[in-house]
């Protein structure tokens, strides 16, 4: 066999490593991975287009369906965007309730990742234990919202359901129990020498890599990049409570696990303070929004995987958004595999790919398919090229005209 001919090891489109259809081609030289290619587009559902045909209130529940794990991140970001468009301030009680839901979601999502990471390493005991400890959190969701997933709590101008006073002590009790269990799990995971041997120094992302790829969320924080939308541009109740942003320096998979596990405790801290505030302060939980004026709004939320960004534009006449743009955190986090995977072994690449906690259904906003030729028209590279071209074009246009964009700059 010729020397330059490399074996392609496929991870995907359906593979036990990935919960969703996605295709990574590993070009391997023996066990070593020399190149990785990402083929996306299996999961595209056209949600942005769909939301242009829905009522503003319906879109809240539509975007909730983008992802099953971070299902409240998109509604929070969307509601922030529409409230920014209308220029309204939501009641304080609603802010606290939004923060409670957002942080509970972070808790369950991080525990879910820890479990899955254990499973990918063949450590099924961690998998089962982490998911067992996640169960009380889902119970808390059921108590507050009526659902274990897809909580349907958000509405434009506030939240749909109140947290009852008699529920607060039960919630706090469950939370303290969960805290003890997560402490135990954290110690067990971080002190395990074999896990450390597998994860330390694997898939290192340097600060420059993070900046080059624009990675966000726990992935960036594990590399020492101190960004968190909750603190940098506060929304909901995040500026009303005490908490801190967790960062570590090494940027390997182990540090990503550390960041996620320690963030759980910060989340618990936030929830406890929010529950206290809800218990002591009474008030409205939502504000009536009669009509959406012309204009555009931007909203974001620090989802468990990083900042999720929503852009909504209204023309003031119709009842649905004229344009609704979503950018999910995995969209910028996944391409970091180019910096972290090359040169590692197949075993390590699997955990590195899983280490950014990828969520493909959030990511896939575009797929171009030629039905006659039975193939995709654009590869990942083509899409990047196209988006760069479009940004250039828009930049030129802003110079000449473009009323809406001027307001932003």
């Amino acid at each position, binding site marked *: 066999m010729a020397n330059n001919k490399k074996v392609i090891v496929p991870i995907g489109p359906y593979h036990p490593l990935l919960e969703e259809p996605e295709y990574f081609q590993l070009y391997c030289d023996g066990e070593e991975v020399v190149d990785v290619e990402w083929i996306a587009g299996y999961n595209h559902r056209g949600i942005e287009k769909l939301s242009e045909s829905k009522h503003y209130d319906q879109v809240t529940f539509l975007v909730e369906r983008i992802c099953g794990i971070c299902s409240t991140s998109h509604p929070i970001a969307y509601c922030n965007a529409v409230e920014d468009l209308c220029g309204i301030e939501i009641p304080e009680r609603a802010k606290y309730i939004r923060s409670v839901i957002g942080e509970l979601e972070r808790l369950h999502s991080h525990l879910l990742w820890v479990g899955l990471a254990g499973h*990918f390493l063949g450590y099924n005991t961690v998998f089962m234990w982490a998911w067992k400890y996640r169960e009380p959190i889902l119970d808390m969701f059921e108590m507050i919202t009526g659902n274990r997933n897809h909580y349907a709590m958000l509405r434009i101008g506030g939240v749909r359901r109140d947290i009852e006073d008699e529920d607060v002590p039960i919630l706090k009790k469950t939370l303290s129990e969960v805290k003890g269990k997560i402490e135990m799990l954290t110690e067990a995971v971080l002190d395990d020498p*074999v896990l450390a041997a597998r994860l330390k120094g694997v898939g290192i992302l340097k600060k420059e890599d993070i900046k080059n790829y624009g990675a966000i969320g726990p992935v960036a924080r594990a590399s020492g990049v101190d960004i968190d939308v909750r603190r940098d541009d506060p929304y909901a109740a995040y500026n009303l409570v005490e908490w801190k942003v967790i960062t570590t320096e090494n940027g390997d998979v182990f540090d990503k696990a550390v960041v996620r596990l320690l963030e759980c405790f910060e989340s618990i801290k936030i929830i406890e303070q929010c529950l206290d505030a809800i218990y002591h302060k009474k008030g409205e939980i939502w504000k009536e929004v009669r009509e959406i004026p012309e204009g555009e709004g931007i909203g974001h939320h620090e989802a468990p995987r990083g900042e999720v960004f929503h852009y909504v534009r209204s023309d003031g006449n119709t009842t649905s958004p004229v344009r609704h743009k979503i950018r999910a955190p995995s969209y910028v986090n996944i391409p970091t595999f180019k910096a972290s995977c090359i040169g590692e*072994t197949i075993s390590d690449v699997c955990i590195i790919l899983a280490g950014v906690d990828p969520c493909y259904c959030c990511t896939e906003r575009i797929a171009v398919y030629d039905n006659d030729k039975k193939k995709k028209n654009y590869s990942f590279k083509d899409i990047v090229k196209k988006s760069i071209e479009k940004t250039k074009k828009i930049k030129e246009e802003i110079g000449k005209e473009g009323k809406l964009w001027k307001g932003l700059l």
Partner: protein
Amino acid sequence: MSVIYIFSYFVLFFVVLSIIGLFASWIDRKLTARIQWRVGPPWYQNFADIIKLSGKEVLIPENANKFMFIFSPILAVISSTICGSIIFLVLKERFGFGGDLILLVYLLTIPSLSIILGGSSSGNVLASVGISRELKLLLSYELPFICGIIIPAIKSGSTTSLIEIIKHQQIYGSNIFSLSGIIGFIIILISSCGKIGVVPFDLAEAETEIAGGSLIEYSGILLGFYKLAKSILFVVVPLFIVILYLGGSAINSFSGFLIFVVKYLIVLILITLIRNTNPRLRIDQILRFFWGWLTLIGILGILLTLSGV
């Protein structure tokens, strides 16, 4: 002995070993489930799995070497059954010959080799990654495994006969009750995890990395044969360790049999515990671990044995 007699004897062993093996795998699965706070499967689950697999269609890939593809799983079952039959004959009938220890060491590598053969004949990329891992794994655990076998062989008066080892332990006590015995037991226990192919050394199958590895193209009864071979190894390897280290008891009396079963279960449970408290290692880490620390400790153990500690 006529050919039919030998054949029927083989079939009898195959059936008995399969039943015990599937039951042992159930103990492993159930215990794993309880450790992980799951309910776990009912006792007949493994039997149901094999019966279901035997009813499934056997798919042979187009670019596979058909003869080797079909023959390899059968080879795995045959070799592990012969291992089991030798051990059973030694235990039950006190039938053995000088050098059966060495024969067992050879026969125990054949299931791994048959996985390599089957994987390489299936013509799949992931299988080729799997067989390269299996090959490295085989090379790495074999050295400490042999260290772990040499220690009791020297202890029992430099013999290569299993019966001699058992007799020696009946007179002078189990091999494990000494420093070198404990060292040897730990070494052979860890390397036998690699032999059976469970976590932390299951990277030849590594479901979440290479989706089954060498076995990826197998389906139906051929996959069932591999599963059976693995189940039989779950009997053979712990029994081998019991004979070498925990003293061959008088299996013919009822109480002796009971003690023997308890010893076997202890080894089986230790293997299950190891596989539930460790993540899967990388192949380079495994090589370094087996050829580095474990072999060094093994050689230390042999030196200790020679000096009589």
